[in-house]
């Protein structure tokens, strides 16, 4: 359907829109272009990060030990930045524009500013990648001072963050204008509510990041004499961990959306689900403290308060979603007549839909591996046994990779036919992609966690300590899990390659309107 100027629908606005033949949603053309550019850039970052994942995964596999030490640490830094920041935030920018404009039938406010935001993020991401690969910033994602990176590294980081702040502001402004112009009736959809949660968390998260990174940049430029490492850690993790809560909220918004797209699920109780999101805004930032439990300089009261009741309120939010989404799927399936036995609804669920498989695996990996390991790490005494071991890495790969990335991948299969308006490339692969990726990430995360319980440190090139002055021998059973993590990595990277091949291939498919909600039939 061709884009048409729309005096009748969006009267007086400059916007062009089209009506989606499948969902009957109005699609703002300016928003659509931004969604496409941000999503494609996200996938480029994922491809870079995934390539580095393969190389560092093969290095930590003891029998392969591929890279040299400097390149291992360099690519590990680049892997963290591309995956945790660039892939996630570019995809979320696309998600926010999608939520605010398409789901609310609204026009994007501040289109030019949105392109400025995109440019800032792109320049920041390119700068950071370049400076890391040039060997000027071997400091890891966390960049703890007094470890020194080139000032350009921090400038790139900050430019990216400024772009991300702009995206959040444009998202919120678009919702406000949509409300004022009565583009939607009543309350906003639950998915948009979830994305709004993500945007609000993103704003205070990025503010905390600015408080950490701007003084660090000033220190590197010689303007201030020193950067306190304890202060940096508190403010950095207000950014570094809370940023993952942005991913969490966005992921759950996408879980609800995929449940609707695949089985027509309707939230069992809108009120309960919305309360669960509000719990995240109020309490989940305290998860940041878990990085600091074994730090010097923080009082026991601070550590105690932040691991206590408030954190469990955020956990309660997750437990509500853990009920609400499966219950919504079950109700929808039963309403369709799949009532046989206790699990007839589940057996008859659309297991061939890549979105549905992504949703189930993402929920399972996040819910059974990622979430519980995180809660365990949040207890002080256990944190003492786990801090900076590979258990931490195992935890956040189960949340942010097995959970968020897998959900984002599943969602992409709906975005490509409906927003890019191109049929999916290599449909037989699409069915298997979530399985390969999910099983790979789950294997890797569990293996990392187990290796960590045997003392395997994170961010470490050689756990045999070959050239150390005082020899160290870690338990030999650890090697089994290091190897298993390597095998999981290979599987996950295979799933990642499948995803990138599908996405890139689809970009070259002939453009046509979607014919069905199901990406396999569209």
């Amino acid at each position, binding site marked *: 359907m061709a884009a048409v100027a729309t005096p009748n629908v969006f009267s007086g606005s400059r916007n062009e829109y089209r009506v989606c033949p499948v969902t009957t949603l109005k699609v703002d053309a300016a928003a659509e272009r931004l969604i496409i550019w941000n999503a494609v850039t996200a996938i480029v970052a994922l491809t870079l990060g995934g390539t580095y994942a393969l190389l560092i995964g093969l290095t930590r596999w003891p029998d392969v030990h591929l890279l040299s030490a*400097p390149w291992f*640490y360099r690519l590990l830094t680049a892997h963290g930045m591309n995956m945790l920041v660039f892939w996630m935030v570019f995809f979320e920018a696309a998600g926010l524009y999608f939520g605010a404009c398409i*789901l609310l039938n609204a026009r994007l406010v501040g289109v030019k500013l949105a392109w400025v935001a995109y440019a800032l993020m792109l320049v920041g991401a390119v700068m950071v990648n370049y400076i890391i690969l040039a060997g000027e910033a071997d400091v890891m994602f966390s960049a*703890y001072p*007094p*470890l020194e990176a080139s000032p350009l590294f921090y400038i790139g980081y900050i430019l990216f963050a400024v772009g991300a702040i702009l995206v959040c502001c444009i998202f919120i402004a678009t919702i406000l204008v949509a409300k004022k112009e009565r583009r*939607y009736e*009543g*309350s906003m*959809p*639950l*998915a948009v509510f979830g994305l709004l949660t993500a945007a609000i968390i993103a704003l205070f998260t990025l503010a905390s990041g600015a408080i950490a990174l701007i003084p660090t940049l000033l220190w590197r430029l010689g303007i201030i004499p020193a950067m306190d*490492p*304890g202060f940096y850690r508190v403010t950095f993790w207000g950014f570094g961990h809370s940023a993952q809560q942005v991913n969490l909220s966005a992921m759950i918004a996408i879980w609800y*959306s995929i449940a*609707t*797209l695949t089985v027509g*699920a309707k*939230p*069992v*109780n*809108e*009120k*309960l689900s919305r309360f669960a999101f509000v719990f995240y805004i109020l309490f989940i930032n305290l998860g940041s403290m878990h990085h600091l439990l*074994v730090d*010097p*300089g923080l*009082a026991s009261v601070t*550590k*105690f308060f932040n*691991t*206590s009741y408030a954190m*469990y309120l955020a*956990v*309660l939010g997750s*437990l*509500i979603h853990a*009920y609400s989404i499966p219950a*919504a799927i079950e109700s929808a399936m039963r309403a369709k007549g799949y009532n046989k036995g206790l699990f007839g609804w589940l057996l008859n669920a659309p297991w061939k839909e890549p979105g549905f498989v992504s949703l189930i695996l993402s929920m399972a990996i996040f819910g059974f591996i990622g979430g519980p390991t995180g809660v365990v790490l949040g207890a*002080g*005494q256990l944190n*003492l*046994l*786990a*801090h*900076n*071991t590979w258990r931490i890495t195992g935890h956040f790969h189960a949340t942010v990779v097995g959970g968020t990335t897998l959900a984002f991948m599943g969602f992409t299969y709906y975005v490509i036919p409906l927003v890019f308006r191109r049929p999916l490339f290599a449909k037989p692969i699409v069915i298997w992609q979530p399985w390969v990726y999910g099983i790979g990430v789950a294997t890797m995360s569990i293996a990392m966690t187990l290796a960590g*319980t*045997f*003392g395997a*440190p994170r*961010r*470490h*090139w050689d756990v045999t*300590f070959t050239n*150390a*002055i*005082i020899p*160290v021998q*870690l338990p030999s059973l650890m090697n089994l899990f290091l190897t298993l993590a390597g095998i999981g990595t290979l599987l996950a990277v295979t799933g990642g390659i499948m995803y990138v091949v599908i996405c890139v291939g689809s970009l070259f498919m002939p453009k046509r309107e979607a014919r069905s909600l199901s990406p396999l039939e569209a």
Partner: protein
Amino acid sequence: MAIFTPERNWWKPLGREEKLWVGIAAVWCVFMFFMLFGWYYLGTQNLPTVARRITTAQYKTLADAFVTKYKVGEEGATKVPVVDPKGDPEIYLVAQKWQWTPILILESGKKYNLHVSSIDVQHGFSLQPININLQILPGYDFIVEFTPTTKGEYSLICNEFCSIGHHLMTGRITVK
């Protein structure tokens, strides 16, 4: 329909199953909250929380004096000092690129105040095989009160990235 606007009046009471689930979850969260106090008293291994500010130069002076006073030997190509504090409870450990200094010889059943700090970048104190882990920052003298209970040799590794030779950083504590 999560992607469409909800019906006009969505502020509805919870259903029976929802109430049950949220109730169980909330009770569990409250239980976990009280157990945070419980673990503190039931457990024998709690977070160290005593630390004081110190410059890296001051810390190095203190640690060097400690090593000079109690040094009983050297080990390895770079002559890492071996120190037996002979009953002095105030013991010092220095983290620096890329060595834990000195090697400590401690007595089982005796209470120590282990001072540990970095004189360059951040490091990760990781005592193996018992897997006790602490974050070590320059400028903070972390004072860990502990009593070794099991005799044997314990390895120290670094588990916070501390630049390119990070994987070379090791140390040892012997309990006799």
